């Protein structure tokens, strides 16, 4: 008898599991879409030259008018405009940002808004691979005025650290990300949202990310669990707003190129190749035989593709060890080895970071 009861329970379970979700989802997906679209806004700001788009996406995180969006060049203007889902155009300013999470929070310059907003505590969720998802964004600026943002469907392919094979591509966000099989990360899609088909908020769609080597694109979203606290703290005014570039100042910087006697070319591009401009006489670099115009390719076996990355790598060196560089001189690859000086850790310039960026290095 007990066995039969067990069996019937199993069957009941199976049947409920099997039948219930599909009908429920079928009815709710349109209302899910409508609900999410009402909470998604179009952001218009700087850009419009070359191939830089001047628009992105945001999602409303407080009914008083706070919008979370992706931290990008679009926000680099006094003339920032947010277009609500009902078509209202409202001026906005950047209230705070966390560049390492690619996050910015905007404040709308209007009163008594009472907007439909995400409740980051109650509405958000976490999902694993295989979860069916929807992506919402202002991609390609297809929607204007009160037109609703675009919706894509897909599946979470992986939840994994975005920090990737060194040098394949550069991303400011290096933590865990949802990788999706839909083409969510299009121009202007950054700051959009990834949700379950039931409308649970999973993450914020990131920037366009291309692997320069294979010319393939990665579609990812930053999990809301990473963003929730900073967003809430920025709104509460408890978060230390940082300026662009602050991440580099605050990053671990135990050693600088100069401490090895290396003067790099001026870092003027987004990805300035790590050419050595000068070598200080009598320095470790000079002793190791480094020369002006050497291009630094590898630091301790890791590919570096820019001055910025080289500085980051040096900043993370441990005192007292060895620094192995591979440089390109003419058409030759030359390995060199320098001692890393023994020196006490300089106290971090600021307080420790709220969240280590993934820690996958």
């Amino acid at each position, binding site marked *: *008898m*007990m*066995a039969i009861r*067990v*069996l019937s329970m*199993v*069957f009941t379970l*199976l049947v409920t*599991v*099997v*039948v219930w*979700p*599909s*009908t429920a989802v079928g009815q709710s*997906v*349109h209302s*899910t*879409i409508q609900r999410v*679209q009402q909470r998604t806004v179009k952001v218009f700001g700087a850009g419009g030259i070359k*191939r830089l788009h001047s628009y992105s996406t945001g999602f409303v995180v407080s009914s008083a008018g706070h919008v979370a969006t992706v931290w990008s060049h679009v926000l680099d203007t006094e003339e920032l405009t947010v277009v609500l889902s009902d*078509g*209202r*155009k409202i001026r906005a300013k950047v209230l705070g940002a966390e560049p390492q999470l690619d996050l910015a929070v905007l404040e709308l310059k209007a009163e008594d808004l009472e907007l439909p907003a995400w409740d980051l505590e109650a509405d958000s969720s976490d999902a694993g691979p295989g979860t069916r998802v*929807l992506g919402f964004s202002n*991609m*390609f600026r*297809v*929607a*204007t*005025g*009160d*037109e*609703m*943002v*675009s*919706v*894509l*469907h897909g599946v979470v392919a992986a939840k994994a650290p975005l920090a990737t094979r060194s040098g394949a591509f550069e991303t400011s966000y290096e933590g865990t990300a949802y990788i999706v099989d*839909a*083409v*969510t990360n*299009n*121009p202007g899609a950054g700051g959009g949202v990834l949700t379950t088909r039931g409308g649970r908020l999973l993450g914020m769609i990131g920037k366009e990310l291309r692997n320069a080597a294979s010319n393939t*694109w990665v579609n990812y979203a930053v999990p809301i669990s990473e963003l929730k606290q900073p967003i809430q703290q920025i709104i509460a005014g408890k978060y230390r707003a940082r300026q662009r570039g602050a991440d580099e100042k605050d990053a671990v910087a135990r050693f600088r190129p100069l401490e090895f006697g290396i003067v790099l070319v001026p870092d003027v591009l987004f990805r300035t190749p790590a050419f050595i401009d000068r070598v200080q006489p009598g320095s470790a670099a000079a002793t190791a035989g480094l020369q002006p115009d050497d291009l630094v390719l590898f630091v301790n076996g890791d590919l570096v593709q820019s001055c910025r990355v080289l500085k980051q790598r040096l900043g993370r060196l441990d005192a007292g060890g060895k620094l192995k560089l591979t440089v390109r001189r003419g058409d030759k690859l030359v390995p060199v080895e320098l001692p890393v000086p023994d020196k006490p850790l300089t106290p971090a310039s600021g307080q420790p970071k709220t969240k280590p960026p993934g820690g996958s290095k």
Partner: protein
Amino acid sequence: MRFLERDGCPGCRWWPAAIVLLAVAVLPRTTRAVDPAVLAAEAKRIAVASRLASSVVAIFSRGGQGGGSGVLISSDGYALTNFHVTRGAGTFMKCGLNDGRLYDAVIVGIDPTGDVALVKLLGRDDFPHAQLGDSDKLKVGDWTFAMGNPFLLATDFQPTVTYGIVSGLHRYQYPAGTILEYTDCIQVDTSINPGNSGGPLFSAGGHLVGINGRGSFEKRGRVNSGAGYAISINQIKLFMDHLRSGRVVDHATLGATVVTREDGAVVVDGILDESEAFRRGLREGDEIISFAGRPLRSVNQFKNILGIYPKGWKLPLVFRRDQVRTEVVLRLRALHRASELTGQPRASRTRPGKPRPGQPPGRPKRRPRRGRRPPPAKPPEKYKHLFVKKTGFANFYFNLQEQKRVMSGVTRLGDFGSAVGAWVLAGKTAAGDAFQLTLADAGVGLSWKQKAYFQELKSAEPLDEPKGSGGFLYAMQMWKTFLANRAKGFGEFYYLGSEPLDGSGDRVDVMISELGNVRCRWYLDRKQGRLLGFDSQREEDTDECEVRLTGDVESGGRHWPKAIVVRSGGQPVATFGVATVTIRKGATE
């Protein structure tokens, strides 16, 4: 009992069996798809896709060096595709169906602005075809199938199927370097790639809801990047009879431009003095409240509404100035000059340089590697007669066919060609005034309310007589010519397509006549072919004389209207009740 004692546990002997049963119950379900709903949905998808596949056309241009897709919409072979697919394909092309056969096809009509072309597959009268759906019923999130021939993969003409959702509706896509403009279109994440152009977008239920034609590509190369666009089938329905007319059809403009004000209102910021909108009182600064019955909230929306209608349609427009609401019905002006549409298309190479957003995926140039390569599409000998060249037409042959169909209704009205002499119509107007209208060879005379009006025909220009009627006398002369001489009486005479009578009535067939500067639109009932009325315009950008014919009186074996209702410039002129009709042989006045 012993058993129980030996096992020491009641029911324990059932466990092995239970476990086996459990395994049986669980394992097969997990190894197959667990969810019967998923299986059912899959089975439905497969069934719909395989049913639809037979209506999908693989189109190859002359020599088979490019191509695209299309979809059959009637058993006699009419198929829809993109204009940018047929543009380089010539008048005859080869079309493959999933029965593995290659059919000859001929161009019928084109809409270069809307990027739609109608072609006709030949050789069968029982083609499998798709059912037209209602694209206005689509909702964002609905599943869709796109079918076609992306990358020209299918050498056996089995269409490729992609499946995705509606990402956005009523999208506006700016012209991409050409006059081609996508208005009120459907945005999908269903994969649309080069070669999908012209192919069908089906609803989950298998109804044709759009024609795929564009995608947003930007920097990722010419492959799907999550945003494809389909021309809505509801837009195409508005153009369908225009396309069947064999013409090069045009879209419309209001003659006014609009901007969105800070508060979201859509206001006129420029207007052509010669437009009908201006004549009906629309001015700069007026707020447009609704257009074609749809409320307006953005410039894109205005373009979306305007973009789905053929030129010449009448649409209601509501505007506001100083709190005063005005409702008018306006005939839309042509968007392009005829030469812009019929100008020889440039050789259709893939545009060099960087791709633009929202450009047509175009025709991939790769030849099918193996299998049947279609032979060069020289006009096939047995179908040569199905193409007639004429300026302004994609294929005049189809216009002649439609003319024949529409004018057969006029034939049933009687033999007016034999009514030689003056036609005298007499009776009373609705207001009770006696009138006599005389249509003679030398001129048209009207005596009405103790006044006489005259329009000389031999030398004089068409006059606005009576004043404010839009030229009623000359219009009635056109009516006589239409009945008695038909095409022979005019410089140009062709079938236009169909439109709702007076902007809101039933769809009627429209014939166009041109004589000198005078252009008439003739409205014929689609079922019986009755002549319902006509609009006569003395010259461009003047108010038409709108004549509507009601009732039916037989006299001398001919059917005459019982009443002639005349309007012009939105105002009634008179309703002439016809009591008697006399043919005066040899009379000149």
